[in-house]
């Protein structure tokens, strides 16, 4: 057999670092928004206790897991999906597809429409999770970027925009 050079996949380390950071931040922001925003709070109240959902890339992540515990508290549960029961999987078909989503080159609905995002689980719950993530993105992102990420930018009061943003971002950073 002739000698050949074995090529190993590089693993896209920079993209993975960026995506891990984004998923960590968004996961904690969901936890924070559940305490700050009435609509997010209501959406989580309608989900069953002990409900976990994961968002990430096929096949090896990165992932974020968010769950509602038995006391009804919303928690960012980290990036490990192996030791948890996941009720709803929102899986991007590759790291590249997840990168498109988290660099806001593509919105969640368009990612879904172009068969890059697969949902496994109960659809009404998936609809609720997408609505939650839309609200969280409005808190986290400047308007001109958030408009790329969601279908319709909400008409919030100035108070909700300013106070809500401060509270969500502060709680996200301190993890409370």
């Amino acid at each position, binding site marked *: 057999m002739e000698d050949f050079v074995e090529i190993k996949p590089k693993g896209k380390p920079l993209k993975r670092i960026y995506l891990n950071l984004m998923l960590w931040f968004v996961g904690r922001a969901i936890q924070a928004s559940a305490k700050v925003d009435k609509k997010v709070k209501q959406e989580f109240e309608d989900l069953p206790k002990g409900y976990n959902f994961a968002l990430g890339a096929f096949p090896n992540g990165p992932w974020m897991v968010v769950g509602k515990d038995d006391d009804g508290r919303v928690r960012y549960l980290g990036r490990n999906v192996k030791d948890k029961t996941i009720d709803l999987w929102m899986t991007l078909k590759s790291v590249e597809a997840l990168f498109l989503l988290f660099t806001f080159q593509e919105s969640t609905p368009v990612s879904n429409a172009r068969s890059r995002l697969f949902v496994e*689980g109960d659809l009404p719950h998936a609809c609720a999770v997408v609505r939650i993530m839309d609200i969280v993105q409005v808190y986290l992102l400047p308007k001109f970027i958030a408009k790329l990420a969601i279908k319709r930018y909400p008409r919030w009061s100035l108070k909700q925009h300013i106070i809500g943003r401060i509270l969500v971002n502060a709680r996200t950073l301190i993890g409370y």
Partner: protein
Amino acid sequence: MYVPDYYEFCCGVKTVAGHGTLERIPALLSDMGAQKPLIITDKGVSGAGLVDTVIASMAEALPTCPVEDDVPPDSDLKVVNRLASVYRKHKCDAIIAVGGGSVLDTAKGVNILVSQGADDLMAFTGANALKQKLNPLIAVPTTAGTGSEVTVAAVIADHEAKKKMLFGSPFLLPDAAVIDPRMTLTLPPHITAATAMDAMAHAVEAYTCLSKNPLSDAHALEAIELIRTHIVNVVRNPDDREGRLALATAATLAGIAFSNSTVGMVHTLGHSVGAVCHVPHGTCMAILLPYGLEYNLHKIEEKTAELLFPMAGSEVYATTPPKERATTAIAAIRKLNQDLFDATDGRHFTCFSQVKDPQGRQSITGPDIETIAATALGDGTIFYNPEDLDFEDCMMVLSAAWDGAPLDRSKIKQG
């Protein structure tokens, strides 16, 4: 033409269409290695003698064939479980579904249970829960509308929870669709009208919603033109066999289109109206279709304008100023609904306030509208609608559709 940077398209159903195609069923079964099919149908279809026609056409090759005709108009979890036990009792190895959308979706549900050896259909709800090929299933549609014979989806009601469960998987595609105009000849005019408008809604939403692609567009445009050309004539002349075949073909084309590009808010709201108030699906589609286009107009004006060509013909398209083509296309759908209302002596409805149950009571009442709007927010098709849709938006559209008044577009939230 819009070409997304990525799209997927799949239609793996062998389609056998034309006059005298029922006689091909035994050979199709043989190709699939099946010998003992269970025929699933409903009492309306069997009462009209259509199952007798199917059995007679297969008599030489399949002299005996168990028949179950107890499928209600709304597919139901309990019915699916009962029919699965019948399949197992008779040791069947295939299903022939003879009927409309409810029968075909029920048959898909039964096929999930018997192929997976399962008892709980709810374990397979949602998208892509199925991981392996199911047993042979042949679809023989008796309405020209649902397109269920070529779709990857099944909608089955859970009457206790008052919601419709969506099942989506490539494994739900039937192995073959047999389209024979003999199966739709006895369809009453108002059901012919409603089911054809169901197909129209599939095609229009496939063309205007987020997951559209060039291949689904081609199927959708052809379906719209076939329906527009034949629908009123077939409703007025039910024995028009060529027209029946054209409508059945259009329904299959529209089914292929929406199975590959999905649908939007017309179905989001329509599924919920059906689940909460048991209004027939085709009726919901006919009523809601112009509202769906109106609501999304600021995002899909160009695509809606393109629909005027198949919807009204080349002459109307050419003589309509480009800026008016989208609104003219919506008006053309409203006019088609009105023409069908006239052709069916008022049995094809143009707004929800006209819809009555068999006892003559209003099918949808004021409090129902809130329940419908809340239910709609959990329907998976909402993902694919071009514009966002919240509870207040659903209420606004449903209220206008109840009155039959066009949407007040100044109230539509844009952002």
